């Protein structure tokens, strides 16, 4: 006990000096990385002649799907992958103690980003598991009337910000639990679980430039929110989520949260400027482009545009050196267009024409300009190939046509 306490004092002094730096943010991650061996799966029958020399990879404009690891996060994680490999639940030796200290420091970093107490943060494998923990069994615990409200903070498809503080206020006054999936919002917009009266929150590591395979769930202590564990076992994480906490991953999550807290304002300003640039440049060169989602309550880094008379997947194919995503049916496994776009009342043909542009911490102005230029070029080209565009140019009202059904 005394040995451990002494060790802890020493360890805190050392690790405080080596935490993620508060230095100026590093810029200019080269995203067009030259690969020497193209690892991406190319269908075997097309590889007639192997390409000589290095291969360029596409620009990355799909940060809502996942984000690259911030180099500072990797720096924070590496020691725990290589040297400090103890199980954080081992209570009898220094390996365990140092790992536990790192875990608790990470917990504090996550908590401080959302204004919570560290005792209210439970580490999980990701936002999906967090959602499941938060929602499971909660309804059974209380009255049959509405017992839980669950809302996404920022939508991953159209970037719309929900009025979380208002919803929190309403839920609190009606004594109803309020859960929010903040995967796309944590570290990007200011969140405070007490101001917004949030009872449960899901956090995802790989959406905030942290590692994949880790997340957290925030569970309010005052007033206590009771949840049932999804997986039982050794009782780790206060019995709410058994299983050894993966120290390197949670250190990464903690570091990502700390970096995000320091850089949130700067990132938000920069991303807003880039988003404005992208939208303005596209809209001034192309007619009939619609932005999906409320323009006012909107997170700028997620831009969803519909290009009328051009189908989304064909545009993605044309923009082959930019990694993007679409709300088009052709790109979803079920061949159904995006349910989000349908829910906001987008016309079905525009839902098939939507593209999501993701702008993140490492997106450069050059990349945005390149994307805009290619987008304009290919939309014009696809419109030349489109019978709908031709009909509109001839003055035909598309809504008056009786299309063939199937």
């Amino acid at each position: 006990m005394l040995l451990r306490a002494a060790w802890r004092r020493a360890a805190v002094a050392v690790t405080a000096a080596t935490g993620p730096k508060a230095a100026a943010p590093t810029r200019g991650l080269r995203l067009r990385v030259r690969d020497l061996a193209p690892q991406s799966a190319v269908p075997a029958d097309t590889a007639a002649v192997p390409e000589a020399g290095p291969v360029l990879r596409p620009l990355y404009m799909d940060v809502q799907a996942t984000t690259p690891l911030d180099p500072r996060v990797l720096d924070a994680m590496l020691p725990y992958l290589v040297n400090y490999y103890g199980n954080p639940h081992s209570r009898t030796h220094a390996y365990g103690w140092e790992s536990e200290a790192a875990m608790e420091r990470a917990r504090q970093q996550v908590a401080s980003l959302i204004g919570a107490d560290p005792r209210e943060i439970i580490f999980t494998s990701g936002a999906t598991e967090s959602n499941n923990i938060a929602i499971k069994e909660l309804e059974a615990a209380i009255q049959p009337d509405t017992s839980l409200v669950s809302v996404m903070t920022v939508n991953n498809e159209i970037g719309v910000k929900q009025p979380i503080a208002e919803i929190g206020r309403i839920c609190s006054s009606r004594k109803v639990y309020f859960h929010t999936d903040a995967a796309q919002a944590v570290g990007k917009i200011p969140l405070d679980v007490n101001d917004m009266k949030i009872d449960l929150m899901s956090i995802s590591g790989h959406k905030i430039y942290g590692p994949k395979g880790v997340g957290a769930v925030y569970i309010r202590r005052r007033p206590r929110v009771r949840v049932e564990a999804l997986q039982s076992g050794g009782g780790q994480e206060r019995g709410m989520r058994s299983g050894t906490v993966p120290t390197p991953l949670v250190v990464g999550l903690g570091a990502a949260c700390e970096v995000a807290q320091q850089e949130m304002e700067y990132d938000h300003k920069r991303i807003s400027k880039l988003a404005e640039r992208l939208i303005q440049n596209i809209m001034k060169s192309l007619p009939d482009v619609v932005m999906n989602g409320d323009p006012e309550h909107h997170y700028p880094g997620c831009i969803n545009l519909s290009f009328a008379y051009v189908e989304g997947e064909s545009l993605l194919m044309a923009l082959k050196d930019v990694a993007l995503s679409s709300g088009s049916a052709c790109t979803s496994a079920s061949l159904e267009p995006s349910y989000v776009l349908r829910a906001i009342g987008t016309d079905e043909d525009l839902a098939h024409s939507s593209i999501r542009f993701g702008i993140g911490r490492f997106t450069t102005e050059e990349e945005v300009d390149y994307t805009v230029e290619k987008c304009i070029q290919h939309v014009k080209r696809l419109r030349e190939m489109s019978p709908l565009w031709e009909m509109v140019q001839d003055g035909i009202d598309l809504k008056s046509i009786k299309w063939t059904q199937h």
Partner: protein
Amino acid sequence: MAAAGAGRLRRAASALLLRSPRLPARELSAPARLYHKKVVDHYENPRNVGSLDKTSKNVGTGLVGAPACGDVMKLQIQVDEKGKIVDARFKTFGCGSAIASSSLATEWVKGKTVEEALTIKNTDIAKELCLPPVKLHCSRKEGMRNSLNASMEVC
């Protein structure tokens, strides 16, 4: 003539669309987002994109699909006095596979008679372009048959 042609167009198109069953999404593997280079080639080096004069007596026009479904295809063929297809044009609102399918269809029908052209199956087109099973419906929606049927009227 035009009205009867339009009626035939619609009926022929409906027959085409109802004939081949849509593959159920559940049976399919994850959709291949990897574009076969033949599919990409049809977009990057387009052939036969455009329009023929639809008022001309030798031109048959077929239009199938719906914007709400994300798939609309227009196919036009020009036929000479002997019933041989001398020119074909297409325009498509649809995914990469749909564009490639209609482009390939216009390439294949040139030089054939209308009867010969009608024997082309969507499975042939899918095989040539190496379309994965999930994309078969893109080649199914050819407006070819109805434009071919429409052209038979003009001869």
